């Protein structure tokens, strides 16, 4: 019998930059040996808008509308870090009420980001239905954002020393409604997805990264936590007032795509619980209650003190960033979002270095996909959760 020798040549294929299941404009040059991936090289920069350079000739007030364009799915976090950096440098106090409003907004934003991640991740794997379910719920978060901030995505809500405006009438009631509803819906997603045998086969043991590797690559966020490191900046850095809420860091030890999925779903649950607690604990309660108390107790009452304000002092358009340099960070849904800020007592920052979590998490992709099948690229890339707007800035 004649055997046909089949020794395939290695093949280099190009995926993207406009691949239908690619998250934004990312291009992958993949070297294949049959179906197996030998190497993979991400090519970035298609969405580069020189955000760091723009910051160098904008005041903070002018720059704030730009920042929501870094990570346009977790917009509140980019704003939070942009005001935190000069705030910490200039020692601007933040009233407790403002801090609570911020926390609620941040957690809502985290849920929105994880929801969209869930939808696209499952869609990458081949299930389209949950994509529409998550959009339904995400829409509600954006409705809440629109009522409080005026825009669905580009909020421009955080200000140095607080937030731009207090919450509108009835907002807390509706937010509570939403969180309770969302908790039910997360159970529904889990019923739909978690034990689905097709889903399991696609993600279990795929894209594994060990604890040591995760730390060495500088990963953060759910990527790191799914590899067995209990590291959440909300607990580590004690920023805002997260210590006053009762919640747990979500983590897993397997380090595969499934673990990342479970960590993120767990985080959504925790976020809902945190918002529900914050609604109970916010100083002054709802806006309407605060107003009523102010009228009842007169102008000199404690209800007018700093703790019950939504902003300590309205920042002037010529807010000067003091001389000095430092690094601030927040736990964004994708990982550690940081700013390295150098001020020189000018209205413009001298240097504004952004540490985007997506950029750092993306670099591990070649290692994760090596030796896997080509169909796994999408599952792994999906589980890393990148947003190209933030990677390229």
């Amino acid at each position: 019998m004649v055997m046909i020798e089949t020794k395939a040549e290695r093949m280099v294929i190009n995926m993207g930059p406009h691949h239908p299941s690619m998250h934004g404009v990312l291009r992958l040059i993949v070297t294949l040996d049959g179906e197996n991936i030998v190497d993979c090289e991400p090519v970035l920069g298609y969405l580069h808008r020189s955000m760091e350079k723009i910051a160098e000739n904008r005041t903070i007030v002018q720059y704030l509308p730009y920042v929501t364009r870094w990570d346009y799915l977790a917009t509140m976090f980019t704003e939070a870090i942009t005001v935190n950096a000069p705030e910490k440098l200039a020692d601007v106090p933040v009233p407790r009420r403002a801090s609570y409003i911020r926390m609620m907004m941040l957690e809502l934003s985290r849920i929105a980001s994880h929801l969209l991640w869930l939808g696209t991740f499952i869609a990458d794997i081949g299930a389209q239905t949950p994509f529409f379910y998550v959009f339904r719920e995400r829409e509600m978060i954006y409705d809440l954002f629109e009522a409080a901030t005026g825009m669905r995505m580009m909020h421009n809500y955080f200000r140095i020393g607080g937030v731009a405006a207090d919450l509108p009438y009835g907002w807390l009631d509706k937010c509570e409604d939403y969180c309770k509803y969302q908790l039910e819906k997360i159970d529904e997603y889990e019923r739909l997805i978690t034990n689905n045998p097709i889903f399991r086969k696609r993600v279990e043991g795929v894209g594994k990264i060990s604890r040591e590797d995760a730390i060495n690559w500088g990963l953060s966020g759910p990527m790191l936590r799914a590899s067995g490191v209990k590291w959440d900046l909300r607990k580590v850095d004690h920023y805002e007032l997260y210590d006053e809420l009762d919640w747990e860091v979500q983590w897993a030890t397997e380090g595969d795509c499934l673990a990342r999925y479970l960590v993120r779903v767990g985080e959504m649950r925790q976020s809902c619980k945190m918002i529900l607690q914050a609604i109970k604990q916010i100083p002054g309660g709802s806006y309407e209650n605060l107003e009523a108390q102010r009228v009842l107790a007169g102008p000199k009452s404690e209800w007018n003190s700093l703790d019950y304000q939504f902003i300590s002092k309205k920042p002037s358009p010529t807010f000067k960033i003091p001389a000095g340099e430092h690094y601030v960070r927040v736990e964004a849904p994708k990982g550690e979002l940081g700013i390295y800020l150098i001020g020189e007592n000018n209205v413009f920052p001298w240097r504004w270095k952004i540490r985007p979590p997506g950029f750092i998490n993306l670099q591990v992709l070649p290692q994760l996909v090596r030796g896997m099948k080509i169909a796994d690229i999408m599952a792994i890339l999906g589980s890393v959760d990148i947003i190209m707007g933030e990677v390229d800035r």
Partner: protein
Amino acid sequence: MMKFLSKVGEYARDAVQAAKYIGQGMMVTFDHMRRRPITVRYPYEKLIPSERFRGRIHFEFDKCISCEVCVRVCPINLPVVDWEYNSEIKKKELKSYSIDFGVCIFCGNCVEYCPTNCLSMTEEYDLSTFDRHELNFDNVALGRLPTKVTEDPLVTPIRELAYLPKGVLEGHKADHRERRAGKLPVEIIEETQATTGN
């Protein structure tokens, strides 16, 4: 032989498991048959933009003092303030004012920082034109007011989540005139006064 049988058994167990979980997933899917669609059929139904919605900017010519704060806080220094110093009245005289909405990103900085409140944001969001230069609004165009969704007889207005009554999560389920969530401060004052007895 035993090996073969146990293999078959294992296979069957897997199949049953898979069928069970897929069935569970399908239950969620079928559950949607008794739910209403949440989509808004746009030209016939419209969402009522929120009170803080940042749409096209409204400008009141007579209030403006030509201080150019709006230009300074705008990320791209967009508003064009054309003024001349009038030495007779020792004041700046505004000749024309324009904002190009093809460039504006509706961030609201100019509205927030304008010292005389002559700028405000309307609820107009459908700004499409055939030529982008038509979006360059001068002070006359900036002074126009948009039509309200609730006053348009051809449109069914639908409210967004934050404006629905407590417990209602779908805009279709409540009429837009129904009272929204949250008490008024006056009501809270009355309640506390009733309970404390003064």
